[in-house]
């Protein structure tokens, strides 16, 4: 049985030995190096681009908006973002023109000899800024997307409730800090424009190319090279970089490579959407949640990118894993003249889950209940409905999940130990906190139906099988688990399965590698494609005991030169219903559930917080590969602790100012606690052998768990992350009236 086994990563050896060739490692004869001329201001009208006559520009390839064969639009959800700004710029560092040269040094120096003159226009940096006509840049009111989720009649409940508790919570931007910066290579081969690079979604890149070049799909070939981390940062952005590289390659008639250095990558690429979330909650005397009003405001940055779907996932998760009959969630994402915000692991949910899970602790304090007891009284039980009306049908016992996590963390004992410790220590304060949360697997609502993903499993002449999907491995282990799923279904060992490199000329469109969808949605399709393959083999001859490998070889021996291919395409299960217009129904086919518990120590000399212990218990359906799953959880927790305590994007004119690893602080090993990972497995009917998604779930809980612990330790009421020592000092002095 390969599902549930600790199969070593199939890509592991090549990465350990350094033989995996990332895009910057690709050597290609005659390659030119591309760089980008960018806007010096956040908003304005371009007056002129001046090329310093001291440089012989005939040695360079230069591209601007006039060189686009098709519309000057980057195709994502909307087409509002230009590939290269033509007349107006909307954010600082927005690309205006591209230059390429044989020498990377010459091209970098040439960049200093290009001057862009822009007449500034008034920018918006805060989505709450009252609008005047000259500030409007999108639609009638700069709002990219509005969502309302309604259930019951909250207004009526508030009037008579025993308690009404309000709170506002704020979350900051976050930079992905993948190890490998963005990079792309474009060249002509076999009458096609080939694009190779670091990306999560080869078919998004293909769509962007076909749109901007106004050419059919088969004019391009998009290949994913090994990816050194993505976290969502290579979901939307590579489409832009691919079109840039392709435009230069087209004009130069030579291969062109772009590899951003760390500073450029940090300064110009999308980050997590900053959010401001307001809660108003009615509760009865026993602490039961009667009604919730939630308003979610996200900063979308200068263009739409993926903001509508980030808002969608954010609002759907905003009420947490709780039973409540009267809910109104209102969400808006608005334009600002900041670098466009984009996909980041969690995709809106970490923001809204931080808010609800902090708010639950605030409610518990108001009611004089232990935060665990408040959750026990409100966690979903089978038959309850979520905010969209989706019925909670899982076998997961959320109260037991909570109690188990608290047991692993020794919650009750720690609480009393901390009380004693804090009373006697001069400046150290300890606390324990937790968060309960869920994450929907797969695209939201009807997303999977629209995608209609396709997967192939091919029987090769040598008897092995090849899994063919567009799923990219960015270090998270996709290749390995897809091989395990196919091996398990066909009853062969994983050695007999290989996984195709995502290449749009030979793999089908199985959708993007995002949204915690690969294991559950694509994994299920792999199973179905395996069944189709097996059926073809079975129909061919019922050879009794012959192994699948022998039967595949035999099949080829009798039909040399033909292709043996099992296929599957996503069909929406009848049990899942979604009404996009009213945001009602089954938002996701499945949710993964988790409780994270954090213990912290705060040093009141320096106001620094150290997380000293961490328990992560999750129910993710069947665990396909325990080591990889643990890696996803530990990495997500580290990234979540970073978001909560360390990672502050300092903005200047809407762009990241601390675009260096010296000044954008991600936690290192010495800053992290032991991260103790536990799984509860309740097989889902929709995933392969019951697996659900796990990629994003682990980043939803750390921020509220850690900050709840800090609040227990210090009695401060923290409402905003990241919470640096400087922030905690401010809060402490405000609450205590002195330093």
């Amino acid at each position, binding site marked *: 049985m390969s599902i549930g086994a600790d199969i070593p990563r199939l890509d592991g050896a090549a990465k350990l030995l350094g033989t995996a060739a990332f895009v910057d490692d690709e050597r290609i004869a005659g390659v030119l190096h591309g760089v980008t001329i960018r806007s010096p201001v956040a908003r304005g009208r371009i007056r002129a681009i001046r090329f310093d006559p001291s440089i012989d520009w005939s040695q360079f390839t230069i591209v601007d908006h006039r060189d686009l064969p098709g519309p000057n639009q980057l195709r994502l959800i909307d087409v509002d973002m230009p590939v290269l700004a033509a007349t107006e710029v909307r954010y600082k560092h927005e690309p205006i023109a591209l230059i390429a040269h044989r020498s990377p040094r010459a091209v*970098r120096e040439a960049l200093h000899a290009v001057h862009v003159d822009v007449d500034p226009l008034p920018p918006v940096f805060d989505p709450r800024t009252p609008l005047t006509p000259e500030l409007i840049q999108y639609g009638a009111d700069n709002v990219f997307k509005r969502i309302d989720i309604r259930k019951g009649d909250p207004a009526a409940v508030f009037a008579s409730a025993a308690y009404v508790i309000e709170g506002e919570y704020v979350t900051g931007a976050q930079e992905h800090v993948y190890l490998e910066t963005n990079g792309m290579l474009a060249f002509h081969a076999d009458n096609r424009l080939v694009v190779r690079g670091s990306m999560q979604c080869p078919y998004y890149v293909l769509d962007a190319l076909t749109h901007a070049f106004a050419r059919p799909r088969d004019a391009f070939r998009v290949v994913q090279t090994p990816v050194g981390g993505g976290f969502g940062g290579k979901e939307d952005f590579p489409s832009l970089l691919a079109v840039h590289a392709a435009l230069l390659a087209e004009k130069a008639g030579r291969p062109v490579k772009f590899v951003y*250095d760390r*500073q450029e990558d940090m300064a110009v690429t999308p980050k997590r959407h900053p959010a401001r979330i307001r809660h108003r909650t009615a509760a009865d005397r026993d602490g039961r949640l009667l009604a919730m009003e939630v308003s979610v405001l996200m900063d979308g940055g200068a263009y739409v990118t993926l903001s509508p779907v980030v808002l969608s996932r954010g609002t759907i998760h905003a009420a947490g894993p709780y039973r409540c009959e009267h809910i109104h969630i209102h969400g808006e994402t608005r334009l600002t003249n900041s670098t466009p915000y984009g996909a980041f692991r969690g995709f809106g949910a970490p923001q809204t889950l931080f808010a609800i899970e902090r708010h639950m602790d605030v409610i518990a304090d108001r009611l004089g209940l232990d935060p665990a007891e408040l959750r026990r009284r409100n966690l979903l039980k089978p038959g309850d409905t979520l905010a969209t009306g989706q019925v909670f049908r899982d076998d997961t016992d959320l109260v037991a999940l909570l109690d188990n996590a608290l047991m692993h963390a020794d919650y009750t004992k720690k609480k009393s130990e901390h009380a004693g410790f804090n009373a006697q220590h*001069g*400046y150290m304060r300890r606390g324990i906190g937790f968060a309960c949360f869920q994450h929907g697997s797969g695209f939201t609502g009807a997303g999977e139906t629209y995608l209609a993903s396709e997967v192939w499993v091919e029987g090769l002449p040598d008897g092995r099988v090849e899994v063919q999907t567009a799923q990219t491995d960015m270090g998270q282990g996709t290749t390995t688990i897809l091989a395990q799923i196919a091996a398990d279904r066909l009853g062969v060992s994983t050695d007999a399965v290989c996984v195709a490199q995502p290449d749009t000329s030979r793999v089908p469109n199985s959708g993007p590698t995002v949204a915690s969808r690969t294991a559950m949605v694509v994994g299920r399709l792999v199973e179905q494609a395996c069944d189709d393959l097996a059926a073809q083999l079975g129909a061919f001859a019922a050879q009794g005991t012959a192994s699948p490998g022998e039967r595949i070889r035999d099949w080829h021996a009798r039909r040399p030169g033909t292709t043996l291919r099992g296929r599957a395409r996503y069909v929406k299960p009848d049990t899942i219903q979604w009404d996009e217009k009213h945001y009602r129904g089954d938002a996701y086919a499945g949710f993964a559930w988790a409780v994270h518990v954090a213990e912290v120590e705060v040093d*009141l*000399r*320096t*106001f*620094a917080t150290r997380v000293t212990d961490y328990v992560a218990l999750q129910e993710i359906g069947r665990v396909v590969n325990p080591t990889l799953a643990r890696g996803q959880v530990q990495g997500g927790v580290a990234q979540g602790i970073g978001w909560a305590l*360390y990672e502050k994007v*300092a903005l200047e004119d809407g762009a990241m*100012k*601390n675009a260096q690893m*010296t*000044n954008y*602080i991600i*936690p*290192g090993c*010495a*800053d992290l606690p032991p991260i103790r990972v536990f799984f509860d497995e309740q097989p889902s009917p929709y995933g392969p052998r019951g697996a659900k998604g796990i990629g994003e779930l682990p980043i939803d809980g750390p921020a509220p768990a850690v900050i709840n612990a800090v609040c227990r330790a210090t009695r401060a009421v923290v409402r905003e992350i990241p919470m*640096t*020592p*400087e922030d905690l*000092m401010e809060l402490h*002095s405000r609450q205590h009236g*002195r*330093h």
Partner: protein
Amino acid sequence: MRVLTPHCLSEALDLLAGDATLTPVAGGTDLLVSWPHRPKDNLSLLDLSRLHAELAPMRMTDGHLELGALTTYWDVITYAPIAGEFPLLIDAARQVGAIQIQTRGTWAGNVANASPAADGVPVMIAYDAEVVLGSRRGRRTVPLCDYYTGYKQTRRAADELILAIRLPRQRRDVHWFHKVGARQAQAITKVGVAVVHGEAGWRVVANSVAPFVCRCRNMEAALESGLHPTGPEELRAIVVRDISPIDDLRSTADYRLNVLARLLYFAPFMPGPANA
């Protein structure tokens, strides 16, 4: 860019005497930061790596600990005699960058680079270190606490090399150092302080709170006169006269001042209720 690699000290000093624009390079861990973004066309490096025999030795004489100019943090961490008499050197060395930097970066480079955030400098000033400078014109020593004259300004003349750093041996009964960075390793100091008490009295030296690493002489005087603070505010009122912290990308002036006062207040040597 030019790189000159002298093979002995006198050759190095000759080269420096002949060309005041030469930039010495030891471990390179400061010079090479943001290397691709630096203009290099007019850069001339004087590579010190072949001068190991003359500049590296570390020795304990009767009167001094002497760190030759190429002594690295790692050399100090692994040199047993230091632990007993100059423990703060090891404390500070272990908190510089991480092991890769500790094995390349030199104490002299830390001094010469003149960053207000340098971690090697406060502990050395607290031990009354002197900088030994040499040139064709001769040798001289400058107390490290007087070595800086402004932000990134030092008393070193363009033709001089730092040859060594000398720390007097003394009886000392308080050795205390605290570095506050944004994380446990690979962090630039937001505020740091070294405190030593010995025959020469109290030394309180802070980094990242002024244009250069500085002694907090009002704080030292208060300790000499036997202060007995009842709260961190009391120390804040004293130390505020010693430092001039700023707001920057890494922290705030307020944080730097408050945290310095709080670190001192709760420090184990401080008399008063915090240690009652």
